[in-house]
């Protein structure tokens, strides 16, 4: 029969606490890991969001090599004056709202594509490809 000593209980408790602490530290680490989640374009100043946007952009360029190129972007911006305004906007919230409106309009008109499983708008795809 196994005898439970004070020492074993202490070691056990320390072991459990270490595992929990390790998990918490890992979760802290995870906060800085860029996730491939949408809405990444809205504030490209945020480094983790920027990383995700680049990752998506690389996928976009793999499937659509012309996306994000200067020629394509020039034409694209020409068709979407709201984006030009957004690019000049310094207020982050206003810029985000303008971009979201443009994305919503894309979706409403069926201008969307599937990248790495995500259903995203053409605007998102072009901007991500541009920063990739």
């Amino acid at each position, binding site marked *: 029969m196994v005898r439970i000593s004070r020492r074993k209980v202490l070691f056990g408790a320390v072991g459990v606490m270490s595992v929990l602490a390790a998990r918490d530290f890992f979760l802290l680490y995870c906060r800085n890991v860029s996730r491939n989640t949408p809405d990444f374009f809205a504030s490209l100043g945020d480094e983790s969001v920027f990383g995700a946007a680049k990752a998506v952009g690389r996928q976009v360029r793999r499937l659509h090599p012309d996306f994000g190129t200067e020629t394509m972007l020039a034409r694209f911006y020409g068709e979407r004056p709201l984006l030009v305004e957004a690019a000049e906007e310094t207020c982050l919230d206003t810029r985000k709202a303008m971009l*979201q409106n443009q*994305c*919503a309009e894309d979706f*409403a008109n*069926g201008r*969307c594509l599937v990248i790495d*499983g*995500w*259903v995203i*708008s053409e605007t998102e795809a072009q901007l991500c490809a541009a920063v990739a």
Partner: protein
Amino acid sequence: MLADLETLEAGTTLRAPICIIGAGAAGITMALELARAGVEAILLEGGGLEFSDMSQAIYEGQVTGEGHTDIAFSRLRQFGGTTGHWTGLCAPLAPIDFEKREGVPHSGWPITRAALDPFYERAQSYLQLGPFAYRPADWDELLSGTAWPLDNSMVEPAVYQSSPPTRFAETYLQAITDAPSISCLYHANLKNLELGDGGAVTRAEVASYSGKTIFIEAERYVLACGGIENARLLLNFDSQRTDGIGNENDLVGRYFMDHMNCTLSELAPADPQGNIDYYLPHETDTVPVHIGLKLTEDLMRREGLLDNTVFLDPVWESESHNDDFRDHAWLAFSAMARAFSRGHVPDQFWARTCTIADAPGAVFTGVYRNIRRRFEPPGTVTTIRFRQDAEQAPNPDSRVTLNGELDQFGMRRATLDWQLREEDLISLRRTHELIGQAVGAAGIGRVRLGLDIPPAFDAIYTGYHHIGTTRMHDDPRQGVVDADCRVHSVENLYMAGSSVFTTSGTANPTLTIVALAIRLADHLAGEGKGRV
């Protein structure tokens, strides 16, 4: 009258205008409806009044094809049938499900949804549901939260109601026993249907487990044994018709369909604090209501897509509010807890206890989380998963056949070969993509598709809905039964249950099974009067 076949004398012949084989949702509903119309009926149940291994063993068979299905345990062979363990979600099939759809091969029922509406309305009370109200507007004032502002030319809310769920054995045993015009025999296993010279069924041979045989002589017979068993019986009756009764065109057992039960694709919400109450279960004064999302019928037609309702499963920041621990052990535990709380001893007590003992982890997790969630707020929504019972297209290669093994009554056992096609999954993917488009346009968030091209089948599970093996069609070369559910080639044999569905739609089938049973009972009662 209710009796055990064992108590009757061997060789007895019982007579009634109608003989119903199978006392599940369809058979019990039909017997009660016929009683209401003053028509005598004999109702046969192969199992007993409670679960028994001996009866259940008749359902054992082989599974080939898609691996994520089951032939033996999804069904219950006892009085009340599979309603002994169904979960209760109900909705009528959509009008489009009855149409001949260009993108859906072999679709097109010979009846319309409008023709079935009056029967759906009557079916509601059998399943202890609320009013026959399945338009979102019917529930506007009663539901909490608000619907997302999605483009209503693309996506609309779908209303489902929850039955308690009605256990037909508990709920209707007394009514069946008390009805003077119903003779219900249990432990009564159909062994053969004898055909006369004119091609009509003249006699049913029925046996008990001890080998006692009796005979039933009726004017009309109804097989109501479920989607797999209806086909197995017809295929086994090959002494007078080489390929089995009703199988002149090699259709019996073919077109087997199930719902593609899966949690695939997810929505990353733009606002994790956004309110999604509207899409969570609602308790109302009359019945619990669930709201899902589905494409509009116009869009489905235009895109040639199969039907699907997406239910939203939020994943909360606080783990205690997530239900991802649910498995068979948890379901068994919660069923037992519910029964005890109502002061009953749960049915299948030992079977459920053993299920819990086999894998108690989910029960511990579930109890812990349910306690914790009383004190802990759910936090924000991290993601929203898409859960569904998606439609598969009718497929002649998906089928129930017989194998060489024999059951206790010398009848060949069934082999289930559930076949899905790549197109079924691509349709589901496109449905999610279009929902993603509508969700993006409304600024709700972004959808990530859970299916690639080519799609993988490993995330698809059975919905435990066995459909289509004696399908309804006006043309005997395309269906086993006609619009009245009569077997084309037998003038007095009818089929009841989901085996007659031409397509599966996306709605859980029980409400439609009961509605069609009421319709068939009306038809038989009317025909009976015509004969007098």
